[in-house]
């Protein structure tokens, strides 16, 4: 006869966890009067902020997104208020139409870049992590540092190394990188852009590219209009006699200092943003990411014959596959509901909690994450990825320095991050927006793209690249 109702092969693999009382004041879902089921974004382990009940997500530090928006709005506002009336009168009424269209396009693509999930990979469930650990041949002795975990795959006759991510507990797919500012693995990671306040990755790269291209058109257009406006005024306009003769020595700029402000902003923006657009056009045409370009993954500088295995060897096909490819779905189910019978999860996707020990780790992680989300005291460049994101009971992870870097689109601001070592992150803040943009201009494009000449910018760009080389040498 049967001895027991059910078989327990391994108590840790029971599908229904034993009901426990509160395991944590913050991380636990309070058993509210039924009816307030929580969505998965509440327990999302990365450093992101969510609005509109999970519909909109941004990085935890919004960076200078308000500044970007402010600059665009102010410059365009000044253009419409001061330049358009004059130019409509003297040139054509198409000007505000074109300007308006470009402005709307720029703002929409900027907001989409900032608010879209860049391609975040959800963290591995505890079962998956355990399975991978078994495969890596962990002897179970956690008192010393394990060897670095990498896996090699061959893609298009090219050997690619996949690294193990200690935070997300999985082998990162090719072209995926872990952003330490957002504490997420992002697919096809390009860079973390402080100007848009979000990472740029697989899902929002096309928005980002459209944003910078349309912004370069927009700034060039405004610059052209302002210059035309001022030159028309200086010449006296069409039949208008100005007061230049009446007040010698006075310049038209003094008549309208705001126009001067516009001019200055546009002048610096045009060069830097045009440069950035050119650089990204090169990247798109050769199917590279900023991350790969900076690290020189496929440039063959080590002397080996390495080529980019993802490139289709045809500029047009590369452009189409990067910009017009199918739009992949978001892998983090932000607005899904947490299953009712479970306690807090890190991945937010699984319902299995095999181990009480794991449960407490996860709760601490969520507590820690929530704590981080709530305190805005961490300086952005000193922020480490959630230390409780790794199980605190696993000392191997604490001892293993796994430097993770996030590249920002300024190119000159790096977060050199390593766990277990108390190293201060190095970063460089350049003084002007122009230098920041110029730092990304390529020295020698191998494709025939209209890039602004590198000679005037060889100074800052080579300095910046040299500096980049320094920071990244630790990874090689």
């Amino acid at each position, binding site marked *: 006869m*049967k*001895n027991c*109702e*059910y*078989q*327990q*092969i*391994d108590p840790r*693999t*029971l*599908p229904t966890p034993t009901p426990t009382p509160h395991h944590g004041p913050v991380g636990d879902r309070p058993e509210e009067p039924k009816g307030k089921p929580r969505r998965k974004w509440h327990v999302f382990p990365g450093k992101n902020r969510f609005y509109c009940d999970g519909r909109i997500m941004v990085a935890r530090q919004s960076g200078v997104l308000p500044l970007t928006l402010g600059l665009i709005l102010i410059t365009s506002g000044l253009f419409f208020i001061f330049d358009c009336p004059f130019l409509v009168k003297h040139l054509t009424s198409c000007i505000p139409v074109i300007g308006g269209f470009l402005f*709307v*396009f720029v703002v*929409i*693509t900027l907001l*989409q870049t900032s608010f879209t999930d860049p391609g975040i*990979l*959800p963290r*591995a*469930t505890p*079962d*998956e992590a355990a*399975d991978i650990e*078994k*495969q*890596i*041949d962990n002897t179970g002795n956690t008192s010393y540092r394990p060897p670095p975990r990498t896996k090699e*795959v*061959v*893609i*298009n006759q090219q050997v*690619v190394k*996949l690294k193990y991510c200690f935070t997300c507990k*999985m082998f990162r*797919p*090719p*072209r995926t990188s872990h952003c330490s500012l957002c504490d997420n693995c992002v*697919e*096809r990671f390009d860079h973390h852009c402080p100007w848009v306040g979000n990472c740029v990755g697989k899902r929002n790269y*096309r*928005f980002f590219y*459209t944003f910078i291209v349309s912004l370069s058109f927009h700034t060039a257009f405004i610059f052209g209009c302002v210059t035309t406006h001022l030159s028309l005024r200086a010449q006296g306009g069409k039949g208008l006699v100005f007061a230049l003769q009446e007040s010698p020595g006075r310049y038209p700029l003094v008549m309208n200092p705001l126009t001067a402000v516009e001019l200055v902003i546009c002048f610096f923006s045009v060069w830097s943003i045009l440069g950035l657009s050119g650089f990204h056009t090169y990247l798109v045409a050769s199917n590279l990411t900023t991350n790969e370009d900076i690290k020189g993954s496929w440039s063959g500088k080590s002397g080996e014959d390495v080529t980019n*295995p*993802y490139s289709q060897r045809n500029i047009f096909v590369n452009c*189409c*596959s990067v*910009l*017009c*490819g*199918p*739009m*992949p*779905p978001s*892998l*983090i*189910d932000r607005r899904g509901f947490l299953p009712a019978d479970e306690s807090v999860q890190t*991945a937010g*996707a*699984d319902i*299995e909690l095999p181990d009480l020990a794991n449960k407490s780790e996860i709760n601490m992680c969520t507590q820690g994450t929530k704590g981080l989300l709530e305190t805005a005291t961490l300086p952005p460049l000193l922020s480490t990825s959630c230390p409780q994101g790794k199980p605190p009971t696993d000392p191997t992870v604490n001892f293993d320095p796994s430097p993770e870097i996030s590249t920002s689109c300024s190119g000159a601001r790096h977060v050199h991050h390593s766990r277990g070592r108390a190293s201060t992150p190095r970063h460089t803040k350049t003084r002007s927006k122009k230098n920041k943009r110029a730092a990304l201009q390529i020295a020698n494009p191998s494709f025939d793209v209209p890039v602004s000449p590198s000679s005037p910018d060889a100074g800052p760009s080579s300095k910046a690249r040299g500096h980049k080389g320094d920071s990244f040498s630790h990874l090689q």
Partner: protein
Amino acid sequence: MATEFHNLQELRHSASLANKVFIQRDYSEGTTCRFQTKFPSELESRIERKLFEDTVKTLNNYYTEAEKIGGQSYLEGCLACSTAYLIFLCMETRYEKVLKKISKYIQEQNEKIFAPRGLLITDPIERGMRVIEISIYEDRGSSGSSSGSSSVSGSTAR
């Protein structure tokens, strides 16, 4: 060894989870979504190799279809670009349509093939497209524990 389940509901109510097997991604063709078709040893006693491989191959074909870059995807991309990508807010993309087909297919396979053998496939989208998770169940009512322990001990490091 006979762990016979008649339907998915019975599986969920009367069986206890014994083990999970994870089918990892196959990156040999780049970053497109493909899963390895290698037959895991834990399933040897549970399901025929051919059935398993057919399921994984069909899933791979679905994903290839979703990520195919061709005329339709170009059209979708250009149209989206011209509307400042606002069209993504209203329209369901081709990828999402194929994902729905995949969910239906997995549901079908679970009902017809996997549940009767005490297995359950989890849709990869719920695992971030990293793995295909196959849960192995043991019948609560069965008294034999040999197959259960063998499937647990079978998952040794490779």
